């Protein structure tokens, strides 16, 4: 049993960054996730693990610090909330193009624009469909508890380095701010400079003696070569899609209807599921843990299994529901229920939506 603590999601995330052996955090304060950089500066990890923590002048600077640091083979991460993540999209596109492993956390708040500081899930399109320019993908992990705010950090770093790809942990203001019991994992030591050099020969940390220089760039002015690079990226994304889908299911075995929800919406939907089961309605819950790659095949299996309809529950105007529809491909009914602007739906609203939108009067 690891160390137990009562923590905010943002604090658990920050502690996990230190414990995951991160070499650097570069960030800019924004509500509702400023506790992350506050926790890190207070914890002084440069004195314990040697981790660098720096408050940048903007989110534009912090994502480009990740570009520079990640390209040297070091484990680097940042966190922000929706408006700040929008500012990072240029950098993420470059990082994806140059294939640099970085971890970015989005504690989503209501939008569009400055929106508000309440929890939301309205950045799903941005994180799973590109966000920045060009054909690229982020691996997106969606925690639904304070425990997962901690647990997903080392997983995110592992995926980032396994595929040399940016990984996003997409949380929301509720999970960032709420306090829960969390079991902390044992600290993972930071790699030494020599280990970094040996493990990541692609990294730009000083040309090897007698070896070839390395270049980290997303630029290639030769269209034929750039097309080949794009094909290489697409093959990588295909491999990720084949191997890295993560989800959790509840009561799907005998379900007539399945709620699809992630993050905070999944927590609320779990309660709704209990209420519906108590009414004798056979409902299951599918919780995507990776928003990209998406559990498309799992949804298709559920259709084959005889599920009559799906309800996508989101704190958005209906974003993930498009992926549910793509997976279902018109075979059965797909409905959506959501609240926007930072409003968290109640379990009763979800029950009502499932009964009226999916089952009918």
């Amino acid at each position: 049993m690891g160390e137990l603590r009562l923590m905010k999601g943002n604090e658990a995330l920050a502690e996990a960054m230190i414990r995951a052996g991160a070499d650097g955090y570069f960030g800019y304060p924004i509500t509702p996730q400023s506790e992350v950089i506050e926790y890190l500066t207070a914890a002084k990890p440069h004195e314990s693990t040697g981790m660098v923590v720096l408050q940048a002048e903007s989110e534009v600077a912090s994502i480009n610090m990740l570009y520079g640091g990640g390209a040297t083979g070091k484990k680097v991460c940042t966190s922000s909330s929706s408006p700040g993540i929008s500012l990072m999209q240029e950098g993420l596109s470059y990082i994806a193009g140059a294939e640099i492993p970085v971890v970015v956390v989005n504690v989503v708040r209501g939008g569009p624009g400055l929106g508000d500081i309440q929890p939301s899930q309205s950045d799903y399109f941005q994180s799973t469909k590109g966000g920045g320019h060009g054909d690229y993908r982020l691996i997106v992990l969606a925690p639904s508890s304070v425990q997962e705010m901690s647990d997903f950090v080392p997983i995110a770093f592992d995926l980032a380095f396994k595929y040399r790809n940016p990984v996003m942990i997409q949380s929301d203001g509720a999970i960032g701010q709420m306090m829960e019991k969390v079991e902390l994992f044992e600290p993972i030591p930071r790699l030494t400079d020599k280990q970094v050099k040996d493990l990541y020969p692609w990294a730009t940390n000083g040309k090897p003696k007698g070896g070839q220089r390395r270049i980290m760039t997303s630029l290639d002015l030769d269209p034929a070569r750039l097309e080949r690079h794009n094909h290489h990226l697409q093959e990588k994304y295909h491999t990720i899609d084949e191997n890295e889908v993560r989800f959790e299911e509840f009561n799907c075995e005998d379900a007539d209807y399945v709620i699809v929800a992630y993050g905070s919406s999944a927590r609320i939907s779990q309660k709704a599921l209990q209420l519906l089961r108590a009414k004798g309605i056979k409902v299951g819950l599918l919780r995507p843990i990776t928003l990209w790659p998406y559990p498309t095949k799992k949804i298709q299996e559920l259709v084959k299994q005889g599920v009559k309809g799906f309800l996508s529950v989101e704190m958005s105007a209906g974003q993930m529901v498009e992926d549910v529809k793509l997976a279902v491909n018109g075979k059965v009914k797909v409905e959506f229920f959501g609240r926007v602007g930072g409003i968290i739906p109640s379990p009763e609203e979800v029950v009502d939506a499932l009964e009226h939108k999916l089952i009918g009067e």
Partner: protein
Amino acid sequence: MSEIAIQNIIKPENLVYQKSRLMTEKPLSYCPGCGHGTAHRLIMEVIDELGKENDTIGVAPVGCSVLAYEFMDIDMQEAAHGRAPALATAIKRLWPDKVVFTYQGDGDLAAIGTAETIHACNRGEKIVIVFVNNGIYGMTGGQMAPTTLEGMKTSTSPYGRDVALMGNPLKITELVAQLPGTYYVTRQSVHNPGAVRKAKKAIKKAFQNQIDNAPGLSFIEIVSNCNSGWKMTPVDANNWMVDNMFPYYPIGDIKVDGELIK
């Protein structure tokens, strides 16, 4: 001169000049007469002379020198437009024993990347910034830069820069010299052999500062020409630069060892 006579001349004892060892074989993509090639060469010579070939990471910008990494035979990263100082900040903080520099043009450093420039300088990041100022956006076809002189014609100031409409040419080098985080700030040029020698000395001083762990950032502006953007011959461009750029952007040290030159 016959082939045999030339062969007799090519001997080590007659060698006065050669391609810098740390410049790659790739032909430079710069226009004939442009100062970028000389500036690249000087940096590579300095890194070679300081024995830092295997311990240096360079960051290239967006602009004419976007392909700087093609010509410099060391580990390099290619930044997004204006962001090189942010990349360099993280590289240096994560690898404090390495030598880190950025190479940036005027649009990159003094327009889109102003925030990154000012804050890297103000934090006193222990890096070297080489800033090539030719008063124009060369890569995109000769548009107005933040450093374009008053009255200077560019493709987006076709009747000359009107400061009432377009603002004033930005003396970013004087600006960063005011910040406590800068340790060495100088303005040089590479338009004749004397200037090249002085510029190399300044570049070497900047890199030596970093190796010596001097408390702050070293910033070298190189005032250069853009004969194709300025629509002049290389010789005319250099003369125009001396007559027009140098009075506004005077050559010489601005801050040495953390002290402003009076």
